[in-house]
């Protein structure tokens, strides 16, 4: 793994389906060496397979020899006993050969598949460690194709290819030895064109590699486009843009097609090259063998045998050439795979990072400055606050002010540029990521529902939760009611992204999921935006006791959800502009006050007066109703 190159994630410009990704110019033998690392665990099996394959090639060489003996000596001797005896040996050889083939067929696939499996797993686990920015900065289709399709393209090369090529080299050397024994001068003559072949292959390789890089780029783009088209098909239909999308799609497809054709135009030149050089060599052998030029002295029988061997000798070369061909093809894909593996996650456990012990929930931001990239704009500018354990903090302010960034720094999805973030006095950079995040419950703006059923989706918060605990969590967030109305209750199947649920229902499930995780620090990032008023109110009543004893950060635009917070931070331009309780901030008549007024005004405008006038008469009855509602739902 010394060969690893540093490849950065965050600072890279975003990539779309239109742009090719950069690739290295030269074939990187380091990449090929790294495949070796995948072979290593199966070396023992590999050696056994190789032994089997070599025995098979030995038999494959012996059989023509038996044929020759049969025709040259046994049959002319007209001795049926010898004929049948040799026939029996022949048969035995076949049986052994086929038994070996039987073994090889499965063993080779197994080693190959195991290697692919390992590689796919490495890719997958590695991708798990990569930051959001990696996923945000490129089409998801391009990531997907690396884990699945690219690895599959290596399948043949890794399994049969590698082992066969060793067998071919063996056959090649064996044949060469036999040829030298028959006549060394003629053998040297038959090697005379070898440099030409090597040169041909090398030249071809240069072009072929470039062509395949291009092809893999175009395929990657096309895949990204297909993936995005599938994901965005509803949007396309809404805007009736099917035709335009189709047009772009065909354009992309056309590019793949021409890149493909260019690649095979070069790749398929390999065979004619080898074949022609081989024929020229054979012609040369005939010519020299018969005329005796070049100091060659052979008998007719030897010459014919020699030509036979020369044929044998070129076959492995063609195979080796094909393998090299494959390797070049693969290297374009390999490069992509290793490139992905080499992306270093920006956020990693520091060496010697400790497990964060169960925390009480004190959170300190010490003069935090944050920017996404060096030299960039400060997203947070000297944010300094200290939240005692168990209190609720609300973050308000305009979109893009930095609220989400603050909570992202707390879960260490990013690292601060300056200053520090501490939980119970531990700098978040000094503790392991897993132990930190396990104690935080984050409910994001994007609720994501996995394929499966409702129960499994809630259980995602705590994998060992019992069904009863799941239901309790669902009841606490008032998801239970709607879940029970679904056809199969908690066992109702949900599809990818929860496409069969409404946005509000998804938020409720995600809410239950977070609660089930029982985090010490709870972060709600616009968690209730799609939930209706009645549910939200009931939810809040039910949540009140759950929030007790937990430090919580609440980001919300609806002020109603934040008025009871212990502290409210008004964030603007990456700074805390105001902080205090709801009452304090209102009294201050600053930014928060203005925000509050404008909201209040929005509801009251036009009809507000009527609402006011309608109020006194029904107050009692209405409030009773409200209380009943919450009482029922809180149960």
């Amino acid at each position, binding site marked *: 793994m010394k060969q690893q190159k540093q490849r950065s994630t965050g600072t890279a410009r975003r990539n779309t389906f239109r742009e090719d990704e950069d690739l290295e110019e030269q074939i990187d033998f380091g990449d090929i060496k790294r495949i070796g690392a995948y072979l290593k665990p199966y070396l023992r099996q590999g050696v056994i397979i190789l032994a089997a394959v070599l025995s098979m090639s030995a038999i494959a060489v012996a059989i023509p020899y038996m044929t020759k003996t049969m025709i040259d000596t046994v049959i002319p001797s007209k001795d049926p006993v010898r004929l049948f005896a040799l026939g029996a040996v022949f048969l035995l050889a076949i049986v052994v050969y086929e038994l070996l083939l039987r073994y090889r067929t499965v063993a080779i696939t197994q080693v190959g598949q195991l290697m692919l499996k390992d590689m796919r797993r490495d890719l997958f686990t590695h991708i798990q460690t990569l930051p959001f920015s990696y996923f945000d900065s490129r089409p998801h289709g391009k990531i997907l194709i690396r884990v699945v399709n690219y690895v599959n393209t290596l399948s043949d090369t890794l399994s049969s290819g590698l082992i066969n090529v060793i067998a071919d080299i063996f056959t090649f050397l064996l044949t060469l030895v036999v040829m030298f024994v028959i006549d060394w001068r003629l053998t040297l003559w038959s090697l005379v064109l070898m440099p030409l072949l090597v040169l041909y292959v090398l030249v071809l390789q240069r072009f072929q590699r470039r062509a395949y890089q291009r092809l893999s780029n175009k395929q990657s783009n096309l895949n990204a486009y297909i993936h995005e088209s599938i994901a965005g098909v509803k949007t396309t239909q809404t*805007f009736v843009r099917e035709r335009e999308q189709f047009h772009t799609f065909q354009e992309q497809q056309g590019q793949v097609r021409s890149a493909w054709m260019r690649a095979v135009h070069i790749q398929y030149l390999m065979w004619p090259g080898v074949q022609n050089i081989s024929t020229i060599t054979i012609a040369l052998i005939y010519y020299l063998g018969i005329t005796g030029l070049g100091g060659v002295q052979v008998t007719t029988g030897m010459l014919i045998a020699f030509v036979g061997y020369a044929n044998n000798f070129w076959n492995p070369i063609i195979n080796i050439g094909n393998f090299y061909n494959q390797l070049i093809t693969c290297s374009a894909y390999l490069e992509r795979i290793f490139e992905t593996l080499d992306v270093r996650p920006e956020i990693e456990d520091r060496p010697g990072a400790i497990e964060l012990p169960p925390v009480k929930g004190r959170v300190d931001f010490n003069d935090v400055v944050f920017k996404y990239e060096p030299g960039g704009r400060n997203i947070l500018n000297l944010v300094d606050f200290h939240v005692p354990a168990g209190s609720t903090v609300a973050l308000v302010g305009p979109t893009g002010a930095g609220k989400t960034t603050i909570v992202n720094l707390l879960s260490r999805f990013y690292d601060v540029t300056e200053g520090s973030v501490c939980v119970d006095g531990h700098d978040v950079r000094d503790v392991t990521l897993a132990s930190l995040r396990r104690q935080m419950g984050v409910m994001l703006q994007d609720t994501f529902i996995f394929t499966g059923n409702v129960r499994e989706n809630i259980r995602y918060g705590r994998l060992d939760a019992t069904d009863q605990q799941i239901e309790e969590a669902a009841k606490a967030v008032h998801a239970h009611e709607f879940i029970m109305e679904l056809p199969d209750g908690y066992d109702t199947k949900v599809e990818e992204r929860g496409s069969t649920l409404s946005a509000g229902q998804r938020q*409720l499930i995600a809410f239950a999921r977070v609660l089930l995780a029982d985090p010490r620090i709870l972060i709600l990032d616009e968690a209730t935006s799609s939930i209706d008023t009645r549910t939200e109110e009931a939810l809040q009543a039910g949540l009140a006791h759950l929030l007790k004893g937990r430090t919580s950060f609440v980001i919300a635009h609806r002020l109603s*959800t934040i008025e009871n917070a212990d502290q409210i931070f008004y964030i603007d331009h990456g700074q805390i502009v105001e902080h205090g309780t709801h009452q304090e901030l209102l009294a201050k008549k600053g930014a928060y006050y203005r925000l509050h007024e404008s909201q*209040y005004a929005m509801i009251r405008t036009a009809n507000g007066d009527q609402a006011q006038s309608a109020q006194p008469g029904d107050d009692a009855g209405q409030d009773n109703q409200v209380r009943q509602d919450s009482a029922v739902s809180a149960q």
Partner: protein
Amino acid sequence: MYVDSAKNQHSNNLRWILPYCRPDAGRIAAALVLFAGDKVLVMLMPILAGMIVDQVIGQGHEDRLPKLCFAMIAVTLGRSICRYGYQMFMERFGQNTIYRLVSDEYEKLHDMDFTYFNHTRNGDIMSRMTSDTDAIRHFVSWVSYNILDAVCLFAGSLAVMFTIEWRLALALLAVTPFLFYFTWQLSKHAHPLFYAIRNSLASLNSMVEENIEGNRVVKAFVREPYETEKFDQHNDDYMQRNMDSARNSRTYMPWLDGCSYMLQLITLILGGWLVICQQMTLGALVSFNSFLWMIDGPVRQSGWLINDVERFNASCVKIRRLLTAEPRIVERKNAQAGVVQAATVRAKVNGEQTEDPVRIRGDIRFDHVSFAFPDDPETPILKDIDFHVAAGTRLGILGETGSGKSTLVSLVARFYDPTVGHVLIDGIDARQWPLDLLRRQVNIVAQDTFLFSDTIGDNIAFGAQRDDEQYVRTMASMAGADSFISRMPEGYDTVVGERGVGLSGGQKQRLSLARALADDPAILIMDDTTSAVDMETEATIQRHLQEMEGTRTMVTIAHRISSIKDSDLILVLDHGRIVERGSHEDLVHAHGRYYRIYRKQLGLQSGQSAGF
């Protein structure tokens, strides 16, 4: 569509793929000619070698040697050209075939309705459009001529062998039934195995896809180990399916391979016996034997080719299933003419000028509509919905989570058809409208915002197709998005990720609103579009929307009273039923559910909330 998917629905896979190949008939013919040329030249090689042995060595005509040597080289050169030629033709043909095939898949996909996408995983569709089509490409541009090659060589050589010694050839022919038996068995057992491999791959694809899409949740819950475990299962399953196929090969391949050696053995033993019995000359046996190597290759290859054929078959099944899926929402025949006619009649009846029927006015009527998803008729989502919205007015919809609001509006753009009742747009049943025309003018800003990985500017101009920077900017500022876009370092040229990741929820919502506004629809439907937008910005957006009043029908779904209170008609939905309706004033006076929500929102605003 290049090929009508209804055609050849029940024929076998070869017959089915044929229409996709047909436009390349010329190429295939050319390839066949070159292929035949190659085969003829291949046969010349042993003859030339034989001439060298017979004439030069045997009869001592050394003067013919250079000529014969050059002939050999010339033949190889000729072969190279033929072979390279037909390979290129076949590759091009293969590429063209899948070009047409994937294009059809792509088009079909866009014809499918929401019901289909709700139940089909993206990774599954993805693998049908990538790896499955690749199996087909491999078949048409490689396996096809290799099978032909094998059959030709086998039949040709056997024929020649019959002319040399029919008894011996007959003995070889006796091996053929075994050959057929083993290939038949191999193919029969391989078929379900390859299908299982394809399925396993599709589910591996889906799992990884979901993991990538949900990476934020995975990280937030530190579920990487759990995800890896899930992945391991799929990964292992995929490997096991491949191993199953290898085991199947293990059972039959050695027999097939053994057959080819048996041919040699039979030739030697029986041939040897015939020679010993003086029924055959040694020379005849030698030349007979020299044709054996031509048979050897095809027989040995047969197992691999059969596997490739089955791989092709398995992929065909998956692709055909996609291509023959029936969308539930289909445009009726002559919809355009029907609508034009209806508009003319309506104009006559109302005594109006004949108007442009292509422009929808925006009148929406739900006539006792009930709706259940086609796959779940037991659970009605909408129950007897009946209302009317005049063109140019505003409709507000309020209701609890899951009460059917989003479903209701998707009936307007005919993403679903009502199960009972009618949805009338401008007095014409939505089912009568040409889909294009209807959807072009009904724009739903969906709850799930999807942005393409493209620049912000291009995303906004997605529907409008206007390369007008000023227009895009105007639309953005109407949606309250201009300010945050301008603050970005690259402004409108900022590239956003798939699904708009990298933007906050409120920002995404505003972008998708801007995109819809730029489309200039006659009916604009906003499904909880401003839920994640801060109140100040929302106020701005509301003001802009108000300015547009009268020019288009606007439908707003919201939880905040502030978003809908200006509507001409407000519907309160509960469990798929309209429980209250009227204007804000009416509903406030009615002191019903709407009023309670209003009071709560108002009350909560003024600091009486019970929660956090």
